[in-house]
């Protein structure tokens, strides 16, 4: 949490020293004129140059700027802007369109894929983008465990990657893989990255500008302060229209909204229902609400363990009982959460993948569904042997009353609000809850030191990644390592289904297997989806004339599956707002000084007038 010193107690200056009025006045006036002189040219300068900056308010911290490590939404969104992928998703309906690869072809046995790499793409340092860059990126992820942290799931099945010519990339597979046209992996320049020694430590934030081939080039970054990008004028799809793109940090939602209202930022996402309602009626502000691509879930610690079988962490043993997990979720009234916490700006949670991705959306059948039933939940807990003691508390196998630690993000108001509901609902079941709201949930999470946790992922049009993070292969190699796993889930049946869907080239068949996986995940009860929150965002129409949403009809702007929104944003023609602001500042500063000088003179004169009376 930011700790600006706005709450510090300032000491009023004791003006005991005797100042003579004329000198004070003169000094103040000189200062005022000097300040006016320095401030006055600002509007003219701004008008002459008119650098059109697109400022986006963000709150999430960047985990890493290395595409081999980053998994957070803000970081992967920035990587989309910095590095071109082999293929992109069309902004209208998310079908696969050419990116760095202009064409692709599988062999008849579907085990060898040949990509044609475009010849009109250049790195921002002037070098040509070649197939060798792509081949090197994939090979690095295959051979270096540290480089496979973020996107290792895509290359786990690769046998060999070669670049026979600068425009030809050949990938040989061990088994057929359905995600070959949806490899969401940023391709990095080999000539820059082969100097990196330790991929698990390098964060790509040492020297700027960072060489890339996407629509924007990263030029500056200060943690939790800003991320600055310049347009790539030679981008093959066409240069972006703004002169600069800045992701500016506002850790406080209301501060971001105030900045939007004043025109300091052009775009704000993650609005609360109250903010949305307040911004709807305002001039020059457009509110965009769209079905989200995120799910909002309750993750249960399944007993954290590593691939080498070593257990770690301290998840509550009672949660290993499926009946307990089901009972907990049956006591959650999802309708109330949608109604009260999200105030209708979300869809009730069902399966793992949000309904926006209709191909893969699955919902439990009536007899499979864990619908709201507190009495049933209590019965299930009794059955499982967790009975109430004299105080009405349920007792664990160790004879102590059960209290679960619920890990929540201190920066997310929804976590805290939902946490309070859960505390009361589970309290009625006889189960205690302590809400652990932390700024940094990553440390206890990776160490497995939690019982339950709020969880959420943005889902890509191809669901492979969000499915892969629950496989045994994603577990950390040893308790000390960091795996791609979300929640330490390791289930053999799920893994079999995962392998099947990955090898299935027939879209309908694959969708069917994915739905079976969602069903399995639902029954396991380790990931209970409570809601699919809508994307709620707003932008200034006097700064952004138009911007592409994805999908085109009722789609979101921030965190798209591609660079479409920021690449397509057209600046609005209005240089007046910034000029007006500066003039206002000059007038304000001037008026302030005049008032101060007046007050000072008055005080000094008064002191002199009463000089004889004092002492």
């Amino acid at each position, binding site marked *: *949490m930011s700790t600006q010193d706005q709450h510090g107690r300032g000491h009023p200056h004791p003006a005991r020293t005797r100042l003579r009025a004329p000198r004070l006045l003169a000094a103040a006036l000189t200062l005022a004129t000097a300040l006016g002189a320095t401030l006055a040219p600002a509007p003219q300068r701004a008008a002459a140059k008119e650098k059109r900056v697109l400022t986006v308010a963000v709150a999430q911290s960047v985990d890493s700027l290395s595409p081999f490590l980053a998994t957070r939404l803000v970081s992967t969104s920035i990587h989309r802007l910095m590095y071109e992928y082999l293929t992109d998703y069309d902004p209208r309906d998310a079908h696969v369109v050419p990116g760095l690869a202009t064409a692709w072809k599988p062999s008849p046995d579907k085990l060898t894929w040949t990509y044609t790499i475009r010849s009109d793409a250049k790195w921002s340092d002037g070098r040509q983008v070649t197939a060798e860059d792509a081949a090197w990126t994939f090979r690095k992820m295959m051979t270096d465990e540290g480089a496979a942290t973020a996107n290792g799931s895509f290359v786990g099945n690769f046998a060999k990657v070669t670049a026979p010519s600068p425009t030809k990339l050949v990938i040989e597979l061990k088994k057929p893989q359905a995600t070959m046209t949806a490899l969401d992996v940023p391709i990095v320049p080999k000539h820059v990255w082969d100097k990196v020694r330790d991929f698990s430590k390098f964060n790509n934030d040492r020297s700027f500008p960072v060489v890339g081939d996407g629509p924007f080039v990263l030029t500056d970054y200060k943690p939790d302060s800003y991320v600055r990008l310049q347009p790539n004028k030679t981008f093959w799809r066409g240069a972006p229209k703004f002169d600069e793109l800045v992701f500016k940090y506002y850790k*406080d939602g*209301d501060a971001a909204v105030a900045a939007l209202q004043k025109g300091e930022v052009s775009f704000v996402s993650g609005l609360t*229902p109250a903010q949305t*309602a307040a*911004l709807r009626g305002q001039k020059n502000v457009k509110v965009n609400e769209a079905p989200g691509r995120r799910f909002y879930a309750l993750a249960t610690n399944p007993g954290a363990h590593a691939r080498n079988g070593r257990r770690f962490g301290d998840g509550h043993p009672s949660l290993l009982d499926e009946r307990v997990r089901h009972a907990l979720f049956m006591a959650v009234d999802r309708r109330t959460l949608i109604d009260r916490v999200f105030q209708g700006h979300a869809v009730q949670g069902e399966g793992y993948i949000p309904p926006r991705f209709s191909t893969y959306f699955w919902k439990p059948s009536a007899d499979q569904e864990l619908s709201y039933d507190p009495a049933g939940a209590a019965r299930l807990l009794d059955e499982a042997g967790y009975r109430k003691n004299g105080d009405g508390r349920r007792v664990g196998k160790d004879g102590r009353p059960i209290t679960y630690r619920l890990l929540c993000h201190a920066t997310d108001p929804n976590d805290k*609000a939902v946490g*309070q509901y859960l505390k009361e609902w589970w309290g009625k079941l006889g189960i205690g809850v302590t*809400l652990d*709201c932390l700024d940094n949930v990553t440390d206890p999470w990776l160490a497995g030191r939690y019982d339950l946790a709020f969880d959420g992922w943005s889902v890509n049009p191809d669901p492979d990644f969000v499915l892969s993070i629950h496989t045994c292969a994603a577990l950390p190699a040893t308790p000390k390592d960091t795996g791609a796993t979300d929640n330490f889930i390791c289930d053999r049946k799920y893994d079999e289904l995962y392998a099947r869907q990955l090898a299935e080239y027939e879209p309908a068949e694959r969708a069917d297997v994915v739905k079976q996986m969602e069903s399995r995940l639902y029954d396991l009860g380790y990931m209970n989806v409570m809601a699919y929150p809508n994307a709620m965002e707003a932008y200034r129409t006097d700064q952004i004339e138009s911007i592409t949403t994805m999908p085109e009809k009722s789609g979101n702007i921030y965190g798209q599956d591609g660079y479409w929104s920021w690449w397509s944003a057209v600046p609005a023609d209005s240089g007046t707002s910034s000029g007006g602001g500066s003039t206002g500042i000059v007038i304000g500063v001037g008026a302030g000084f005049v008032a101060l000088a007046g007050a000072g003179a008055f005080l000094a004169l008064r002191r002199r007038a009463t000089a004889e009376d004092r002492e």
Partner: protein
Amino acid sequence: MTTETAPPTAQAGPRALAWQRRRHSVARFWKQYRTRRAGLLGLATLVLFALVAVTAPLTVGSDVSSVTAAPGRPLQGPSGELPLGADRFGRDLLGLLVWGARVSLLVGLLAAVLSVAIGTLVGVTAGHFRGMYATVMMRITDWFLVMPTLVLAIALATVMSRSLGTVILAIGVTSWPTTARLVRAQTLAVESRPYIERARALGGGHRHIMLRHVLPNVMPLVLAQTTLMISSSILAEATLAFLGLGDPTVVSWGGLLQDAREAGAVSSGDWWYLVPPGVAIAVVALAFTLCGRAVESVLNPRLGVAR
């Protein structure tokens, strides 16, 4: 201060005399305090708030903080049924304000007592023992004095689990150095008096001198300091809660402000969510300050002369 009760007054023993003296000084204190209008106003406000906080379980009950049994719609404006409107869960804000008074006052009191207790301990021992010990203690005090209290409290509240105890500890442990300095100065003044020397000559040990002679003499100062410290402790609690470092499931005034901010009440202009807790914090802090100033001016002869 002492727990012993007055013995039968058949013969005026030293105990009885001491009690008589104390009764007299309390009466004298009250007589002087009564003349200070601001102090009386502050005291009346405090009594009112204390009554509201103590009777809260009877008037509003703990159900008022339940999110599942909330009577209104989220962020509903003031109406006849809900005089101060509803919070983001639809809970009655007037009820929450009353319920939150308990936590705010409790934390303010306990944190102030903890802070003054540490300060008094350090101050009296440093003033009494002098030498190496005093130097070390006073340098530690200086270190805490120059550290910005809020930053230290935030650091403490961040590393420990989020609970009321943490907040009390964080405030208490960081705000004691001013008390320590004040008490040390007073201790030095008291110890230079001849009767301390006499007590020492009669065989009084360190413990005896500090507890029987120094402490009763610094007590008025400590009392005034506690009263003043409470208001800053309440403000610190509200600040910490507002910054999201309090326990989110506990209702306090600062916590209400934090909830309001997170729900976006500031930008959407839902004043009923923001103004009442803010005013309550300001009024209670002001009342404690008024009381503290009045107590200070009664007990401290040097301040009394100016009036």
